[in-house]
């Protein structure tokens, strides 16, 4: 079979054979997947008793995975909105990759939740039993709807990438039809994303019984950090795959603007975060809140991870990298900064989930400290499932870059030619 070569543009070298590095990487990922599969089956067969979760600390590593994955998938709605709603057509050069990252983030979260709920056979219950008053219900419905939007957004890319699929007439027609509905899908996707990304923060923010969590800023902090880190992850995988393939995946000016946007988002996040901290921990005195933070300081690395992991290296330093022209032009520095934002988000989601549980409830009428401080280390099987889910998203993205027309304007660095035929 000959590769289809369009005559209008010189199609550049498409490597047909897999390099040893690529094969080793795939083997590594398959091992991760197998670990996850084995651990996941352990949980599904034996129940959640095999985890280190307790009635006092019922959410742990998997909720962190699930919150992080959804947060890191936020680049999809942001860049889709830029392309299809705000008319920045050129940003499609990176938006497709963002959509794939988003799809993998959301499906990873679904996988994590599937293992995490006690009755996985009832995963569909939120669809038929509604409690419209529950933020978690709203999140579940929005996430399902948005996953559908992402599939619709990716479908034309898949069909377009395969000559074989393209030749199947109904598929091709459907792809074209869906492509025309893209602005509506993007608008809808932005709506449900704004909703559930914030509601994930509200999951904690509305819990009046836990002063550490109870906060009106939590929903906004969640969406700001999600946009910053979601865009950062898209930038990171774009630069990384470009380096590995010897290509410039996205035109430099487009990448620059996207990075600048992420930088401003980081600053907005830090701004609200610092005010949120100051309002509850510095300018006011709420005994329960102070006691909680003290307990965290004494029993966990919360203070260090908050100031260094979330604020300084999670947002401020990378914002500087993103916004200062000289640093931004250095692709290695850019990758490092993007990685910092991503790590910052994961640390934040872990801190958010765990800290509220570490501080014990206090409902007794007397003065004695009755309830012990709750401790948690994820069990091996929990790590196994998490590794499997990460492996799944990595392998899917690797194959996506390899087989999909994910970066329509990718150029070979050596020859300076477009890798894919340019249709416009």
């Amino acid at each position, binding site marked *: 079979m000959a590769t289809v070569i369009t005559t209008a543009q010189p199609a550049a070298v498409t490597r047909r054979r897999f390099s040893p590095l690529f094969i080793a990487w795939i083997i590594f990922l398959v091992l991760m997947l197998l670990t996850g599969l084995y651990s996941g089956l352990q949980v599904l067969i034996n129940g959640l*008793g095999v985890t280190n979760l307790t009635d*006092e600390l*019922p959410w742990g590593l998997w909720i962190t995975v699930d919150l992080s994955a959804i947060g890191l998938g936020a680049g999809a709605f942001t860049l889709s909105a830029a392309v299809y709603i705000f008319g920045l057509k050129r940003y499609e050069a990176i938006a497709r990759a963002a959509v794939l990252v988003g799809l993998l983030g959301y499906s990873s979260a679904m996988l994590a939740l599937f293992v995490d709920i006690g009755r996985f056979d009832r995963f569909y219950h*939120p669809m*038929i039993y509604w409690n*419209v008053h529950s933020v978690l219900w709203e999140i579940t419905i929005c996430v399902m709807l948005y996953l559908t939007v992402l599939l619709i957004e990716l479908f034309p890319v898949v069909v377009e990438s395969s000559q074989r699929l393209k030749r199947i007439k109904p598929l091709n027609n459907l792809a074209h039809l869906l492509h025309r509905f893209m602005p509506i899908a993007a608008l809808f996707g932005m709506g449900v994303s704004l909703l559930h990304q914030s509601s994930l923060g509200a999951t904690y923010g509305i*819990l009046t*019984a836990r002063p550490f969590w109870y906060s009106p800023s939590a929903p906004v902090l969640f969406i700001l950090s999600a946009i910053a880190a979601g865009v950062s992850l898209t930038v990171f995988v774009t630069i990384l795959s470009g380096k590995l393939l010897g290509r410039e995946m996205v035109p430099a000016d487009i990448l620059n603007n996207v990075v600048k946007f992420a930088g401003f988002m980081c600053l907005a996040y830090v701004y609200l975060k610092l005010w949120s901290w100051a309002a509850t921990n510095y300018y006011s005195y709420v005994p329960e809140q102070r006691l909680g933070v003290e307990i965290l300081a004494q029993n966990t690395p919360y203070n260090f991870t908050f100031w260094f992991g979330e604020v300084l290296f999670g947002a401020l330093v990378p914002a500087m990298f993103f916004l200062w022209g000289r640093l931004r032009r250095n692709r290695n520095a850019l990758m490092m900064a993007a990685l910092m934002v991503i790590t910052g988000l994961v640390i934040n989601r872990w801190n958010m989930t765990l800290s509220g549980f570490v501080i014990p409830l206090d409902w007794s009428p007397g003065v004695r400290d009755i309830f012990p401080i709750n401790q948690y280390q994820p069990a091996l099987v929990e790590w196994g499932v998490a590794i499997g889910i990460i492996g799944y998203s990595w392998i899917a993205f690797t194959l996506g870059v390899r087989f999909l027309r994910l970066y329509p304007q990718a150029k070979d660095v050596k020859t300076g030619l477009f890798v894919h035929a340019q249709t416009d």
Partner: protein
Amino acid sequence: MTQTPTPTKDKAAKLNILSRREFMTLLIGGGASLVLAATLSEPLDTFASQILHNRARNAHEGDPSYHWGMVIDLSKCIGCDYCVWACQATNDTADDMRWNIRVEDTTPLGDLFHVTRPCLHCKHAPCVEVCPVGATYHRADGLVMMDYNKCIGCRYCQTACPYGARQFNWKERDDVNAQTPEWGQPEVGRRQRGVVEKCTFCVHRIDAGLAKGLMPGVDEEATPACVNVCPVNARFFGNLNDPESTVSKIIATMPTLRLREDLGTEPSVYYIPPEGLV
């Protein structure tokens, strides 16, 4: 729009999402089918009302003329744990997931006292509000109930409950109930792995008792096991809606407190404080 026949026209055509004609067709077609579906389809209507009123659907359970409540006298409680064990036997709970627990507490002057805590059956129950599937709900008589067949085991209710009153079935139960037969016999079935459970105020006794014409809180057969077993009569049960019930009279005449009143959950369990506490 300019009519210049340049490549820009092609682009403009591509950017055009829907023509007016297509848009109208969609609008009219979609609208018509919606109207048709809404008026003609009985099953759709039932389905819609089912999902939209999921939480309210259980409201027919229980009689609204009652509001079941409990009074626990902390000045009387000697910390014997009988109520803990009777509950465990009656509701067949495991040692590490008791519905009714006892903790030791101290007054500001340092005097020891005991607090026992069932589910408080709050009027504004955080667990009911957060449950994504409405598996935990209010009955008309104030009870906060669990539908074990709806629960997906997400454990958000455990996260939201200010009193730690909810237990999750982490594993399939295969333990022998340590409190039987000494403290009673199981009156309800064991719960499945993967769902959350909690104290029910012995709802099976209340409902069966009322059907027989008995009064919960007065007739032992219709009263929660923890109340019956208390050797010092520190627990009272009854209808808070009836000013003549024992619980209403105690609340009207004695100083009482409810746990974490500041949260506005309005529990149905009142405590008579021990000496030296408020």
